[in-house]
């Protein structure tokens, strides 16, 4: 009897659509860890693992935001700039003496507004997502630059110690807060995507927007919501960035949107929409993180790291498109 229950438990897991890819990349992740561990056994030290997971958390968070947008069949190029905008607005306010939590709230409102604009440009104005978010990307970076008159900010000061601990330096129950934040973000948004009506609508739009409309899905609302979710994730990472450095830097988050795409696509979220689960994005973020951390530990210079990661991004997206088109071709034959 026990055997039967175990077997059907695993069967149910594998039956979840998207799990196949997740299992594949998880195996790749394990292999990678072993390889890096062999090169440098310190890789598996508690200190390194802890740092590693804390480094992965921000990528995981923006990966989740981008995944929501990708599943609807769109893309968000403004993620990196929103991280920068969030970092600069929060830091600038804090250096001007505004309470860190109030600063954070104001930052969230401004950045969500940006997300709303991206969402409306795509859903109502029917701009291609690439163009729409290219626009908001440039505007958001501009806002990041003028927030403190074209300078990086000064230190946000001693009053922000609580803020900095909350988002990065502090620990709760022995685990870094950032890791908890990443976990909570994952659990919350995974619930929305897999258990709610809006989550269903998100997959439906990405799969077939016409059929979704004819099934009564409010495409404008759903498309706008995913951009707002993405903006929220970017804002969060921006606040974490402020907490890390203790100041605002104008080019914070530069290029993050592509890391977010990489994490999503490696994890099985297709750039063509309608497919993928957030657990995959989590694994994808870890692959990115382990590559980065492992290469660092192996002593590779930053340039080599960038090249390797860049290649991985391109290859991952290429494979995704090839596999998807291949499947579609055989389905249509």
């Amino acid at each position: 009897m026990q055997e039967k229950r175990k077997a059907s438990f695993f069967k149910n897991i594998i039956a979840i659509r998207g799990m196949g890819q997740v299992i594949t990349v998880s195996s790749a992740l394990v292999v990678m860890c072993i390889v890096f561990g062999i090169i440098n056994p310190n890789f598996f030290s508690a200190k390194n693992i802890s740092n590693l997971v804390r480094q992965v958390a921000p990528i995981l968070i923006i990966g989740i935001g981008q995944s929501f947008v990708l599943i609807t069949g769109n893309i968000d190029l403004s993620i990196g700039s929103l991280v920068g905008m969030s970092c600069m607005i929060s830091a600038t306010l804090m250096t001007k003496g505004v309470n860190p939590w109030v600063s954070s709230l104001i930052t969230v409102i401004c950045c969500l507004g940006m997300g709303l604009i991206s969402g409306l440009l795509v859903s109502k104005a029917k701009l291609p997502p690439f163009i729409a978010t290219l626009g908001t990307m440039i505007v958001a970076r501009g806002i990041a630059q003028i927030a403190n008159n074209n300078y990086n900010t000064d230190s946000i000061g001693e009053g922000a110690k609580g803020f900095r601990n909350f988002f990065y330096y502090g620990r709760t129950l022995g685990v870094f807060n950032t890791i908890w934040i990443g976990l909570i973000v994952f659990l919350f948004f995974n619930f929305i995507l897999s258990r709610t009506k809006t989550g269903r609508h998100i997959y439906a739009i990405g799969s077939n927007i016409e059929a979704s409309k004819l099934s009564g899905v409010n495409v404008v609302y759903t498309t706008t919501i995913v951009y707002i979710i993405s903006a929220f994730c970017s804002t969060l990472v921006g606040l974490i960035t402020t907490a890390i450095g203790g100041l605002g830097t104008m080019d914070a988050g530069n290029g993050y949107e592509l890391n977010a795409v990489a994490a999503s696509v490696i994890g099985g979220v297709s750039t063509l929409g309608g497919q993928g689960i957030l657990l995959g994005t989590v694994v994808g973020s870890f692959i990115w993180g382990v590559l980065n951390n492992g290469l660092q530990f192996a002593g590779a210079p930053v340039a080599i790291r960038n090249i390797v990661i860049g290649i991985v991004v391109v290859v991952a997206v290429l494979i995704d498109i090839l596999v998807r088109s291949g499947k579609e071709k055989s389905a249509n034959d």
Partner: protein
Amino acid sequence: MEDLPVSKQQMVEIAKALCFNAKILIMDEPTSSLTSKEIEDLFAIINSLKKEGYGIIYITHRLEELEYIADRVTILRDGRFVTSMNFKDTTLPEIISNMVGREIKEKYPRINCNRGKKILEVRNLNAGKLVRNISFDLYEGEIVGFAGLVGAGRTELTKALFGANPIESGEIILDGKKLNIRRPIDAINAGIACAPEDRKKEGLCIKLSIRENISLPNLDSLCNKFGIVNRNKEKELTKSMAKKLRIKMASDLTNAENLSGGNQQKVVVGRWLARNSRVVIFDEPTRGIDVAAKVEIYNLMNELKRQGIGVMFVSSEMPEILGISDRIFVMCEGRITGELDISEATQDKIMEYATRFEKKEINSRTA
């Protein structure tokens, strides 16, 4: 070229053909977008080309044009040659008769029900070029067929009723209540369901599972007030629909694309059965599916009819329209050109109405 009116574009096309020393000119439905004056010009040119010795193959459904230009008439049906005769040796009714006359080999599962009260009243509906001043009624206990040629406007009518195409003017009254339909969700909430013509593009999310497809338009009833989907209810709904419609599938988590055409169509229809629909619109429901599945769709329509749900059935296959419907509306160029009770309906009559294009005043003249 796009700055020219259509008639002049056609002139350019003809000129292009003549430049190539063509001996035979083939024209496919050339007059559909022309005014009567432009048609006169075109016929004058055709007649002069005839005199110069060109051979012209003129393809049309507009039978009233034949008297101005046709010397011989060849009729094709279902990809096969039927007959060829001199125009002056035949009559329009004989031509129509040759255009139809598909042998009705299959017996259709017709049931008889008493007609109940009026469900749907459409008054003077206008929605673009292909839905012009449409008025009709739909009653409980009947299947209303919509026949016509491709491009007659039947699909556009269903889209307008379902809120997928914008309505310019007119009224839609359901169970005595006037409806304001601007988007599909309005139609859905009012109780109108639609199985669209192109099931792969508009009816299903082909890469999602059967379960997700069936639940998509039913999520409101499957969720609690926070929008959280009750997974058990979802499983139950899918199971009961699959059982009711005998959908053959390995599991309800199979992707819709792995089903046969007939089973896909059942999923499309099954999505709406869980809602209390008052009207179900079927647009070409049996296209591309096997005979056994076709019969199941007919039985489904009969079942809805028996339950007092209004059924609108659009089809280009005349035998099945004649086999299943109780009343038939024929459309041509966006207007309803005829209404037939099943007792008096024949393929000839349907084709006659289907080719009743708007009369354009044409005076024949020489170039």
